[in-house]
């Protein structure tokens, strides 16, 4: 898709990281699974997959991945997060003292729609894309977002997709559908970031 060959780091401590890998490889990006900090500096983009945020957050700390990943995000490396990944990026989590990367000024509510019975799919109007198939699985939503956070998608007035500087966060799972448009948009961001830092 692009002239600049980019390498994405898929944070792979737990969850549906293979699904992201399949999407981005389909789009022509090189993907590496990140389980320790070694390969992190060679990545032009970071992907935080769905899974259990409590497990992922704990493992990231134990594997000394936490500070390096946070530093990369703050340095401006384009970051794409879905579901649990979005929770890890939230500055605060409702009814939870845990804080993870906390790099997007917003407040997330975990399992916000309820247990698995309340999981659903729907088409939502995603900013810059149009109607997009959205898969919500024990999904969070954002109760509030900071003033510089761009809202990309809402469901019943709840924020479920945002962009903040170099970070893209979604409460749903684009990687579980065949629709690669969101991933492509993000990848275009990664390409221009890579071109910029390499020049």
């Amino acid at each position, binding site marked *: 898709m692009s002239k600049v060959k980019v390498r994405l780091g898929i944070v792979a401590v737990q969850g549906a990281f293979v699904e992201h890998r399949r999407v981005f490889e389909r789009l022509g990006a090189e993907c590496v699974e990140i389980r320790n900090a070694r390969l992190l500096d060679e990545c032009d983009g970071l992907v935080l997959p769905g899974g259990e945020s*409590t497990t992922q957050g704990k493992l990231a700390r134990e594997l000394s991945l936490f500070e390096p990943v946070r530093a990369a995000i703050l340095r401006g490396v384009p970051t794409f997060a879905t579901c649990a990944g979005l929770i890890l990026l939230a500055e605060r989590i409702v009814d939870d003292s845990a804080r993870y990367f906390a790099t997007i000024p917003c407040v997330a509510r975990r399992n916000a729609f309820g247990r*698995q019975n309340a999981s*659903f799919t729907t088409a939502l109007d995603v900013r810059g894309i149009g109607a997009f198939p959205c*898969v919500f699985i024990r999904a969070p939503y954002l109760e509030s977002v900071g003033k510089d956070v761009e809202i990309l998608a809402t469901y019943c007035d709840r924020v479920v997709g945002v962009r903040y500087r170099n970070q893209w966060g979604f409460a749903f799972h684009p990687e579980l559908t065949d629709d690669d448009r969101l991933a492509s948009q993000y990848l275009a961001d990664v390409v221009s970031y890579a071109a910029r830092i390499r020049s």
Partner: protein
Amino acid sequence: MTQKDKDKDMSNISTSERVLVNRGLAQMLKGGVIMDVTNAEQAAIAERSGAVAVMALERIPADIRAVGGVARMSDPKLIREIQRAVSIPVMAKCRIGHIVEAQILAALDIDFIDESEVLTPADDVYHIDKRQFTAPFVCGARDLGEALRRIAEGASMIRTKGEPGTGNIVQATRHMRRITTELSRLKSCREDEIFELAKEFRVPISLVDETRRLGRLPVVNFAAGGVSTPADAALMMLLGAEGVFVGSGIFKSGDPAKRAASIVQAVTNYDDPKLLAKVSEDLGEPMVGINEDEIELIMEERGR
């Protein structure tokens, strides 16, 4: 839930969407450890130790084995207490073929139902028609045919039927290897051979064809039964499991929280022997195991 509510519930969501979100939940659990717990306190320990989900049980398999008699679905009160104690998904077991136990678990808003051979089967011919439920099901399988039969019935996740409560990994290893071998055979077979395979597996041709094209099961496959050390868990991942269930192995050991956290680490880093050495250190007493030829009750034979 009244029948009317149920109809409304079902009409809100189409079957293919339900399949997507239910198989999807299993995908989110990948690379994780699902732990058996018997009370709210153990559930909280499991969550703090990094479990991706807990299995709510009245008795862990080792005790089911020791006590004997008929093992049934757990008390709903216990399940509710465990649901209140944690924020991760809560699973519970019903007996094979026990449609009403499954309906009761669904009414409790359970996140995943395990139609399990660990409990005494309620039906020696039929499994539950899992397509009739909104809730996802996980079922055990010893080979590819068994896995595909459960998927055809609507299972959203498969696990091996390693002998529960024994602390012995040998059966789970056998099932994992068998499924992998049979999958590679299916992947490399000629297209005109799928009709005969569908007969052998006793499943629709379309499911055999889908699996052949994917080169893997259409749902997530975990290892279960006999996992008691970080090395056991890593072995299962090495052999192709996408995550592990740990039953008696944790809360029958000397230091459950430490062992649980180590097994979680081992699943993520199964290909890093140095790290495995570190997390295997000083875990205290493991559960006492039972050898295959010492077992009186073979649970894997239940429900085929």
